[in-house]
């Protein structure tokens, strides 16, 4: 019986809940006496030059082995942007010169025998700066905003100006979204051992292959000399997708000391160890006919990027042309250099930020026209992808609208703002559309089968905590034809066949495709061996006539003529096979592959205090076929919780005078807590997609896209007040 599509429990769940799972900061366990600890000293100013570093006291402190500054750090080779895999990477080669570009940039690293000694010595390092005036926020530098025809070319479809001129109604609004940080539970941990010609790196990363290639390039090694391991991850949300300085400075420390060195960033350092979701300003113009049919969509975004990085990180409006069938669309983006870390993706850098404004503007348009917001979206359903002009590979959006709305009770909504009440609270219902590009990465898998009938599937990708181990086990077990208990998954080691990054909602699709190919290849291989093996009851059968069920191979039509994998393997030693998934090229595509969703939410607002509570949330998603409804549901819950934070509580605040982050800790950066999270319901609208292997579109990002704008729209419906500046804190509603 097939196990794909069944809600089996996480295969590594027991290890995690019993504490037996070893996360990177727990590793290595075996070799404690050689291990020493590194602590980074981070810049206290956001812009300037280091004029002196007084390290005498620190060097003299107990247990100190090494102190690295730009004076004695190993020289690093620059990494050409195009050489590095992944969506973002650290181009600032840390500890190479005296320049400071953002507050929190590492300026020294102390290595000592214990973490306590290293922490203490780090506090003794005295750094003097020649401070310069930083650009603290996007607004400050907005006059110098620049565009990037190469990385963020404008999109133009039809004639927007005419579309706006022809419109009966035009909505022209500007929205701002704040910088945010990812804040996985697990901070960044790295342990590096550097021997004569080999480097072994344990690191919490979403892309072991990118860390390997990045370190190899910067330190002048061949990739084969670098082994990167990341078995269990405590989340990342994109923050660990970038190749960032903690692993670079730990490698430096290991090389200089000849010891195995561990560096674990503090929560405070997580505000600069990797970049942020960039602060943005988004102007949206929608033109529509009286009946709500769109005649124009224009979106002009400005986003922050770092002062030291010339390749703008990403294009917020890239997906704006996709959700609605509109003949005239234009999106542009400009960038402002700010003295902050380089922005990196955060759980959908494009749709998760750029559609907040579009989905709010759609709600404003609905209110203006007096059309139901859901009906407005239905009327603008895109029969093909407006951006590429291609037909959809599959599209369940209308069914998401319908099932989500029914489950939520949307038809009961009184369209009038401030019309629904629950005692002292104003009640608001809002909705939004979600879309996310469905892609995958080149990925190889190896499946091995032993004489005990047990199998292993290996991929050099990693499990972010989302359930990759589990779905990979399910797919490989089905492909080989063994019970799921007989299959074990291995991930997170560059010695395994090469996999991609755990980002971009690509992991499930990539890993499932490769695991399936490898499992099927091994099944075919063993069948060929069996039919050629005179000792087998299958001897002489045609390979096409051999079926496999629960680890038992038999001839079609005669179940008694067969034997188990274990029996074949005992005579024919260990067998393995590989599978290589190659994603369809984006160039020359004949279909547009996207996942779809619809969010419906209820908020209750205290009209006198402006406090908002999300009290109900329904999210319908079409992401092709769901491999495991249990892990999928938990992805959706996490995504909605993150959307609640985006809408109501989360923002990284910067002091305008000195460009330093003023709420760098969980005491000041508020993620939602249990009491902020209502019942969340996930509905999966399933579709077979002939253009996507296994019909797996990926869930990681569609899970959160749509949630924040739905909440914004619900708050408007509750209060009649439109907040266009995220997050909606109570003072903005008074």
């Amino acid at each position, binding site marked *: 019986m097939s196990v794909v599509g069944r809600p089996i429990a996480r295969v590594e769940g027991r290890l995690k809940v019993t504490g037996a799972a070893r996360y990177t900061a727990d590793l290595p366990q075996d070799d404690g006496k050689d291990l020493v600890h590194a602590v980074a000293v981070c810049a206290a100013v956001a812009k300037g030059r280091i004029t002196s570093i007084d390290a005498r006291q620190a060097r003299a402190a107990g247990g100190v082995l090494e102190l690295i500054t730009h004076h004695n750090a190993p020289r690093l080779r620059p990494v050409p942007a195009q050489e590095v895999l992944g969506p973002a990477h650290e181009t600032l080669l840390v500890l190479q010169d005296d320049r400071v570009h953002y507050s929190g940039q590492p300026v020294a690293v102390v290595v000592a025998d214990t973490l306590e000694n290293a922490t203490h010595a780090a*506090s003794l390092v005295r750094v003097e700066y020649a401070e310069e005036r930083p650009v603290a926020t996007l607004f400050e530098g907005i006059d110098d905003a620049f565009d990037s025809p190469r990385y963020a070319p404008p999109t133009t479809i039809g004639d927007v100006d005419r579309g706006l001129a022809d419109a009966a109604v035009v909505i022209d609004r500007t929205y701002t979204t704040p910088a945010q940080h990812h804040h996985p539970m697990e901070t960044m941990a790295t342990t590096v051992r550097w021997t004569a010609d080999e480097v072994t790196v344990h690191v919490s990363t979403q892309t072991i292959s990118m860390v390997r290639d990045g370190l190899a390039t910067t330190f002048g090694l061949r990739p084969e000399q670098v082994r990167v391991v990341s078995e269990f991850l405590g989340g990342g949300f994109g923050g660990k997708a970038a190749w960032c300085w903690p692993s670079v400075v730990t490698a430096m420390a290991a090389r200089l000391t000849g010891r195995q060195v561990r560096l674990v960033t503090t929560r405070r350092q997580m505000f600069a160890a990797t970049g942020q979701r960039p602060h943005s300003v988004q102007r949206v113009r929608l033109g529509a006919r009286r009946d709500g049919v769109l005649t124009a969509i224009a979106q002009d975004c400005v986003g922050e990027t770092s002062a030291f990085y010339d390749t703008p990180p990403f294009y917020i409006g890239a997906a704006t042309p996709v959700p609605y069938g509109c003949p005239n669309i234009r999106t542009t983006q400009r960038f402002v250099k700010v003295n902050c870390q380089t922005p990196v993706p955060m759980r959908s850098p494009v749709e998760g930020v750029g559609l907040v404004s579009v989905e709010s503007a759609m709600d404003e348009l609905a209110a203006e026209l007096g059309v139901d917001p859901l009906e407005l979206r239905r009327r603008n359903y895109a029969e093909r992808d407006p951006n590429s002009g291609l037909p959809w590979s599959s599209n369940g959006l209308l069914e998401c609208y319908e099932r989500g709305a029914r489950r939520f009770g949307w038809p009961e909504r009184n369209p009038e703002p401030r019309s629904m009440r629950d005692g002292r609270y104003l009640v608001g219902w809002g909705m939004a559309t979600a879309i996310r590009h469905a892609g995958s990465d080149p990925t190889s898998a190896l499946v091995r089968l032993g004489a005990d009938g047990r199998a292993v599937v290996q991929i050099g990708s990693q499990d972010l905590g989302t359930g990759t181990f589990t779905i990979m086990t399910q797919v490989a077990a089905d492909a080989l034809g063994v019970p799921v208990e007989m299959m074990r998954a291995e991930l997170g080691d560059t010695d395994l066949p090469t996999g991609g990054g755990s980002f971009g909602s690509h992991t499930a699709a990539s890993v499932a495709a490769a695991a399936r190919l490898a499992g099927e290849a091994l099944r075919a291989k063993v069948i060929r061996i069996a039919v050629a093996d005179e000792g087998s009851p299958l001897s002489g059968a045609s390979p096409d006539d051999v079926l496999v069920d629960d680890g038992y191979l038999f001839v079609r039509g005669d179940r008694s003529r067969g034997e188990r994998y274990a029996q074949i393997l005992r005579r024919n030693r260990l067998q393995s096979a590989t599978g290589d998934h190659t994603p369809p090229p984006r160039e020359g595509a004949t279909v547009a592959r996207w996942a779809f969703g619809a969010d419906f939410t209820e908020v209750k607002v205290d009209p*006198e*205090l*402006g*406090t908002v*509570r999300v009290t109900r949330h329904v999210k319908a998603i079409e992401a092709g076929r769901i491999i495991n409804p249990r892990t999928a549901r938990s992805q959706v819950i996490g995504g909605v919780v993150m959307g609640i934070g985006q809408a*109501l*509580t989360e923002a990284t*605040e910067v002091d305008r005078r000195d460009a330093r982050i*003023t*709420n760098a*800790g969980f*005491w*000041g950066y*508020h993620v*939602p*807590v*249990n*009491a*902020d999270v209502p019942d969340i319901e996930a509905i999966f609208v399933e579709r077979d997609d002939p253009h996507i292997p296994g019909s797996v579109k990926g869930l990681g990002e569609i899970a959160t896209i749509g949630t924040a704008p739905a909440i914004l729209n619900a708050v408007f419906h509750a209060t009649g007040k439109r907040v266009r500046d995220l997050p909606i*804190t*109570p*003072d903005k509603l*008074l």
Partner: protein
Amino acid sequence: MDFIRATTWVDALAAKAAQPGAVPIQGGTDVMVEINFDVRRPPALLDLTPVAELAEWSERDGVLRIGAGVTYARLIAELGDRLPGLAQASRTVGSSQIRNRGTVGGNLGAASPAGDAHPPLLAGDAVIEAESAARGVRMIPAAEFYLGVKRNALAPDELIRAVHVRPAAGPQYFAKVGTRNAMVIAVCSVAVALHPGERRVGTGVGSAAPTPLRAAEAEEYLAAELDWDSGLPAPVAARFGELVSAAASPIDDVRGTAAYRRHALAVLARRTLTWAWNDYRKAAERCA
């Protein structure tokens, strides 16, 4: 850093006298945060958790004496019926882990303007029992205890022994606004306590000035205006809210603006008074 473990109250006082720079630690939910963030590095920690009598409470002559080491969790469970205002405030503190460790004594020791215990202690006329080896016991009314941002009236050699407070003589309420629904420091908070015998309403305001404070004018206004034998006129409740708000001197910070705080204080004050008054009238009507 030295770690001093006092096993008896006498030892604790002696240790504090011998080393006034030693920082007492009870639940540690403030002390350890400050040490971890390197806000301060005290020469010594004085661990009070082994001192058994600090974790006890008793009642004598109609006054509760609550040891400085009684946790929020126990306060809610064991004294919630007699000190409803303090119990309500305690329920909003942090998470269950924090409530299992954190104490009112620690809240007083830290004397943060945002500490949630302070408004109900002020509204309920609590008195803090401080003690030193050299000078013995000193009774400090809550209203005189808070001197500045995170500064209290303790002398360097003094420790907090207990809080004295009368069981509620009438309805009490506490309300706070936070930027999320739990695990949050108050943007502002208000406590009211009705003292029907004295025809008086006690107040406490948190997170809206350098120290927690009583809204004296608001209290005087109610003492003059309230008719304890009838309903609460809406204009009186509203005026009370304005006066509570006027007593504060809030600032803009990452948690909220001064203007928002002023507004919210008025709302919270009006609401808590209305709830308390409604309870009081209901009880009075039942008795009649």
